[in-house]
C-alpha cells in the first residue's frame, strides 16, 4: 500500500509541475492600489479625494481642480516599481520567487484655469507589471531530473483624457473626467520537464489581450467649514472591446511506449474576454489647519460587478508638513485589500488570497514656479496561494514592493 501511494504521489507531482504554472500570470487585478499616482497623492498613501487641487487631481477627484492655485500647472511623474512575490516551498522544497520591475512615466497632466472653471488633460498609468523569469531546477524532486521555465509577462494599463470642473459658490465644486482606458497584456511561457524515467514535456504558450474602454469619473467637493474639505468621487470603467488571442502547443513523450501525446500542433484561439470592472466610490476628508500642515483620510469603496469578486473597502490616510516655504515632507498609510472572496476548504487553484498594507514617504523642494518631488512607497502583504491546478493544497505567500518616484511640476 505504501508503494502504491508513493507512485500515485509521484505521478501527481508530475501533473503538478505541468499544470501549476497555468495560474494566471497577469498584472494583479485582485488589488486596486498597486501603484499610486501623483507626486503629492502617492507620497500621502494615495489619499487625495478631498484635496485634489492640482494637475494630479484629475485622477482622484476632478472637482478639486477647480481650486487649483495658479492659472496653469503641469506635472509629470516617473516611477521605478519593483515587486517581489515569494511562494514558499512551491517547487519541491524550494520557494518560487517572482519579480517584476518597471520604470514608467506614470503620470502627466496639464491644468488651465479660466475664471472659476478649470480644465485639465492627463495621462495616467495606474498599473504596470513587467515580469521576466528564467528558472532552472536540477533534481527538484526525486522523479524529476530537469525543469526549465522561461516566462515573460507584460501588463500595462493606460488612462488618458480631459477633465473639467467648476466652482459653485465659495464652498462647492463639481468636476468630471473622461478617460479612455487602454490595456495591453502579453505573456509568453515556455517550460521543459525531463523526468528521471526519460519522459519529457515541452510546453509553449503565447497569450495576448487588449482592452479598450472608457472611464468616466464624476466628483464633488465641499467645504462645510473653513479649513475643512470633503470630497466624493464616483467612477466606473466600461470596456468596449477586449480581444484576446492565445497560441498553445504541448508535446509529451512517454518513455515506456515511445509515443507522443496530443496537442503537438500549434493551436491558436481567439476570443473576446470583457471583464466587468468594479464601480468605485471614494470619499475623503481633509483638514488644513495652517499653511504648513495638512491631514487627510480617504475611504475607497469598490463594488464588484463580476461573479467571484467581493466588494471591498480600502482605507488610507496622509499628512503633509512644510518645514519652511521651500521644503515639505509627506507621510501616508494605506490598505490594499484583495477583491477575492474569502477562502475555505473547497478553494481550488488558481487562487491567491493576500491583503497588502502600504506606507509612503516623500519630500518636495519648491521654487517660485516649480517643484520636484522624491518619494518612496513600500507595501507588504502575506497570505495564501493555491497554485496546483485542480488541487486544494495551498502554500504560504508573501509579497512586497518598493516604488521610488521622482516627479516635477510647475506653473506655466
Amino acid at each position, binding site marked *: 500500500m505504501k508503494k502504491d501511494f508513493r507512485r500515485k504521489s509521484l505521478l501527481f507531482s508530475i501533473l503538478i509541475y505541468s499544470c501549476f504554472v497555468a495560474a494566471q500570470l497577469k498584472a494583479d487585478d485582485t488589488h486596486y492600489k498597486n501603484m499610486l499616482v501623483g507626486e503629492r497623492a502617492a507620497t500621502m498613501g494615495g489619499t487625495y479625494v478631498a484635496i485634489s487641487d492640482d494637475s494630479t487631481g484629475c485622477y482622484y477627484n476632478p472637482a478639486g481642480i477647480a481650486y487649483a492655485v495658479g492659472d496653469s500647472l503641469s*506635472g509629470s511623474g516617473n516611477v521605478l516599481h519593483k515587486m517581489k512575490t515569494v511562494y514558499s516551498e512551491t517547487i519541491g522544497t524550494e520557494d518560487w520567487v517572482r519579480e517584476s520591475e518597471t520604470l514608467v512615466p506614470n503620470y502627466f497632466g496639464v491644468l488651465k484655469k479660466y475664471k472659476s472653471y478649470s480644465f485639465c488633460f492627463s495621462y495616467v498609468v495606474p498599473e504596470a507589471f513587467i515580469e521576466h523569469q528564467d528558472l532552472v531546477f536540477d533534481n527538484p524532486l526525486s522523479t524529476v531530473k530537469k525543469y526549465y521555465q522561461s516566462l515573460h509577462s507584460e501588463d500595462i494599463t493606460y488612462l488618458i483624457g480631459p477633465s473639467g470642473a467648476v466652482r459653485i459658490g465659495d464652498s462647492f465644486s463639481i468636476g468630471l473626467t473622461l478617460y479612455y482606458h487602454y490595456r495591453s497584456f502579453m505573456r509568453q511561457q515556455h517550460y521543459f520537464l525531463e523526468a528521471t524515467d526519460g519522459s519529457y514535456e515541452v510546453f509553449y504558450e503565447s497569450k495576448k489581450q487588449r482592452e479598450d474602454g472608457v472611464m468616466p469619473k464624476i466628483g464633488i467637493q465641499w467645504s462645510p467649514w473653513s479649513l475643512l474639505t470633503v470630497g466624493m468621487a464616483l467612477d466606473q470603467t*466600461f470596456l468596449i472591446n477586449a480581444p484576446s488571442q492565445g497560441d498553445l502547443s504541448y508535446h509529451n513523450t512517454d518513455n515506456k511506449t515511445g509515443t507522443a501525446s496530443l496537442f503537438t500542433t500549434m493551436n491558436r484561439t481567439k476570443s473576446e474576454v470583457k471583464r466587468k470592472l468594479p464601480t468605485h466610490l471614494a470619499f475623503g476628508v481633509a483638514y488644513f489647519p495652517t499653511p504648513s500642515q495638512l491631514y487627510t483620510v480617504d475611504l475607497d469603496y469598490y463594488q464588484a460587478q463580476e461573479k467571484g469578486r467581493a466588494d471591498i473597502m480600502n482605507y488610507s490616510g496622509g499628512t503633509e508638513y512644510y518645514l519652511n516655504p521651500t521644503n515639505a515632507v509627506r507621510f501616508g498609510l494605506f490598505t490594499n485589500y484583495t477583491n477575492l472572496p474569502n477562502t475555505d476548504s473547497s478553494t481550488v487553484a488558481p487562487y491567491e488570497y493576500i491583503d497588502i498594507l502600504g506606507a509612503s514617504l516623500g519630500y518636495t523642494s519648491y521654487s*517660485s514656479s516649480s517643484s520636484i518631488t522624491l518619494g518612496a512607497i513600500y507595501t507588504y502583504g502575506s497570505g495564501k496561494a493555491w497554485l496546483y491546478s485542480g488541487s486544494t493544497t495551498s502554500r504560504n505567500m508573501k509579497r512586497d514592493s518598493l516604488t521610488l518616484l521622482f516627479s516635477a511640476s510647475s506653473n506655466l
Partner: protein
Amino acid sequence: MNLFRNHLWFYIFIISFAFASFGNAQEFRLRAHHVYWKNQEANTEREIDFGRSVSAKILGKYPILRNEQKVRYISQIGTGISAQLGRPELRYYFGILDTDEINAFAAPGGYIFVTKGALKLMRNEAQLAGVLAHELAHVDQKHIVRKLNLQGFDRSLTAGIAQVLGGASLSAKIALERLNDLAFKMLMEEGLSKEDEADADQKALEMLMSLGYDLQSYLDYLQSLKPYLEQGQAKILSKTHPTIEFRYNNLREFIIKNDLENFKGKKNEKRFQKKIATL
C-alpha cells in the same frame, strides 16, 4: 449600469456651469510655498535686481546730476512720501537727470528719476511732490512688473531639474536681458496703459492730500506741459503718456467725486525756489 443615469451625470455637470461663481475661494488651501511666493518676499529681491538694471539703462541715456544738495532736497520730499505711503519693504531712491527734456521715470524696485528740465518747469513744492508721487504710485502698483509678468521668471536649481524631468515649461522664456530691454523701451517709447497712468495720477492726488499739499498745483503743472509737447522737450513724455486733456479730466473727476474742491493745502513755494534756484 443604466445608460440614462450615465447621461444624467453629464447633464448635471453641464448645468452646473451656469451657476459658476467668481472670485477667490478657499484661501486656506494655499500651502506655505504659495503664501511665501504670494507675499512676494523673494519676488521683491528679484524686482529690485531688475529695477537696478533698468535704472542703469536710464542713467546710460541721461547723465545724472551729481549735485548733492539738490538731490538731497528731492530725496527728502520723495522719502517722506514713500515712508508714509510707499511699500515698506522697498527702499526708494530719487535722482535728477541732467537733461533739458521734461520727464520723470520710475523703475521697479523703487528707483525714481526727475529731469532737470521738469524741475525748471515746476513752480512750487506741491508740483514736485505730485510728480514724485505719481512715479511712486507706478512702483507701488507694480505697473511695469505686472505688464511684463516678471514673476514668471525662475532661475532656481529646482526649476532647472524640473525642466529636465519634463514637468516644467516656464512662461517667461525670454532672457532676462530681453525683458530688461522691453522695460526700458516701455519707459522711452510705448508707455503704460491709459488705465495705469490714470491710476497713478489718482494715487498721486491721494498722497498729496494725505500729506497736506495743494492739489490744484499738480493739475496746473500738467497744463503747463502743453506748450512743450509740440516743441520737443516733452516729446518722449507725450509719447509715453495719455493726452493732457485726458489726465486733467480724470483728475477733476476724482477731485469732485471725493469732495476735494475746497481742499486747501500747502505749496511751499519759497522753499522750493530756494533749493532749485541755481538749476
